[in-house]
């Protein structure tokens, strides 16, 4: 049991403030109390992870427990963010859940090919949406054991 998981951050990469609000609400309703950091575009997300730009000075070794990544993002899209993460030693094992509106087959295939851990389509029905977020939180924050940061085999 990972007792420290309550302090670990969830990084939500989401440009739509309403979707952000709904996701935060769903997390709260599921009693997931981990702090949530929101990045509103792909560049902001990478800056946070690598502690640079607006996030310079943050301790880079403190990595989020899970990233909830939208695909359609300003500046740098979700798939590009994922590709960059997987190429970097520090973040290549970080759990990434793609959370998007798209069920375009191409996006699914590319997402998994680039090393996404999970792909979830946001349901329109908020009850279903909440349930999806609850299950994600339960799995990635409680059930799943994360690899140690920068871990090597």
């Amino acid at each position, binding site marked *: 049991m990972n007792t420290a998981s309550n302090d670990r951050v969830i990084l939500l990469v989401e440009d739509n403030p309403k*979707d952000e609000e*709904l996701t935060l*609400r769903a997390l709260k309703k599921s009693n997931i109390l981990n702090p949530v950091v929101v990045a509103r575009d792909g560049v902001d997300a990478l800056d946070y992870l690598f502690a640079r730009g607006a996030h310079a000075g943050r301790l880079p070794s403190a990595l989020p427990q899970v990233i909830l990544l939208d695909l*359609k993002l300003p500046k740098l899209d979700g798939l590009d963010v994922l590709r960059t993460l997987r190429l970097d030693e520090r973040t290549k094992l970080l759990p990434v859940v793609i959370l998007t*509106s798209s069920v375009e087959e191409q996006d699914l295939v590319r997402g998994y090919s680039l090393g996404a851990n999970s792909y979830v389509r*946001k349901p*329109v029905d*908020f009850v279903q*949406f909440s349930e999806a977020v609850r299950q994600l939180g339960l799995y990635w924050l409680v059930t799943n054991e994360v690899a140690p940061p920068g871990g090597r085999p």
Partner: protein
Amino acid sequence: MSDSTALPAGAPPSHGELERFFAMSIDMMCIAGADGCFKRVSPAFDVLGYSTEELLSRPFLEFVHPDDVPATLAEVEKLAKGAPTIHFQNRYRCKDGSYRWLSWTSAPDPSGKLYAIARDVTDIHGEQEARTWLAAIVAGSNDAIIGRTLDGIVTSWNRSAERIFGYLAEEMVGHQITVLFPPGRCAEEAQNSERLMKGERIEHFETVRKHKDGQEIDVAVTLSPVRDSTGKLIGVSKTARDISELKRSQRELVGAKETAEAANRELESFSYSVAHDLRAPLRSIDGFSQALLEDCADKLDEDGRKYLRFVRESAQLMAQLIDDMLTLSRVTRSELAREKVDLSVLARTTHARLERSEPGRGVEVAIEGGLEGDGDPRLLAVVFDNLLGNAWKFTSKRTGARVEVGTTTQNGLPAYFVRDNGAGFDMTYATKLFGVFQRLHAAHEFEGTGVGLATVQRIVHRHGGRVWAEGKVDGGATFYFTLGEKERKE
């Protein structure tokens, strides 16, 4: 040799000696009298098939081809006036009714008698005729027909060659064929010559040649070696067909196809972004309505809460519509990947999903085993999703609901069916079932977007099949479809 037979040099031949030549001659010799009848004919006349008596019994004009009579009469008249006949030709009728061409030589004789020699030239005439035929065919051909020597000197040039390449025969015969080659195509000629030297024929070789005015023409060329009577390669016969028009329409077709494909790709990315971008606001509408219901329930009365439920239902219906439209457009665009498909498995997969989504409905589902079909498994899965999904939906108000999947035979071909004992429909509207957004049930009875059966129809049509339905209000419905029917008929 005895003295009696020895002739003194320069002495005229004796009568007996002349008789021997007369009998031996392979040319036909004859003497005709002033009455127009033969008086004597040499044995060479046998070729016509008559006896000597028959030949002498009638005026010789009666043996002449009716068309040649006037010319023959004119020639006889000329002779009478003292002009010699040299190589006059006419046709003589043989006993078997056929005609032979004879070439006459004669000299006028003061006695009024006709002394004449004829040579049978029928065979030469035949060859000439064949040559005339060939010449007419070559001249009349729509393709350019060109003869050339092994080193590329043009020896013949027909009318179509003049038309296609713009050069007259007199400009080309005796000149190099390479004037027709656009720059960069000269190597072709060397390669072709090499193959021809080996005696190969080069068929329908598509290339480009140059018109006299400099314009390039697309041509299909056939080259064959020409040999002399001893088998020696002496030249090349070349036929060239102008395929500029064909090439132009081919290029136009390719262009049109590319444009259509580009439009299709654009449409595809458009529908994806529509689907994606329309869902985000719908999620907000639904989500915040739900938030209102949860957080502000005490500030709303019964109506207020009902209205918020309506807002959510509408948002969800619209999301379903977007998804269905996307499936419909995907079905139209995607490439068909056909293979042998186990339709029973597809039906069972759909059934299992329906059971999961609404456990405990208690629908009795019977799926015939081993149903095989030839088609795209992913698209056929969409067919079963829709047909079984409908059967599932329209039996929701029935106790003892039953759904059956199987095959029957229709015009000797297998037809698959999905049958239910649900709400059914009025056959009056059977044709309307497959239209986009056509619904036969009010939304409060059965939910739906009216896109499902249109999608089924498109998939079935893309597989060369037919889809139809039978039903009765409150008496259930059966949907049939076939696959590959068109191909089988062809």
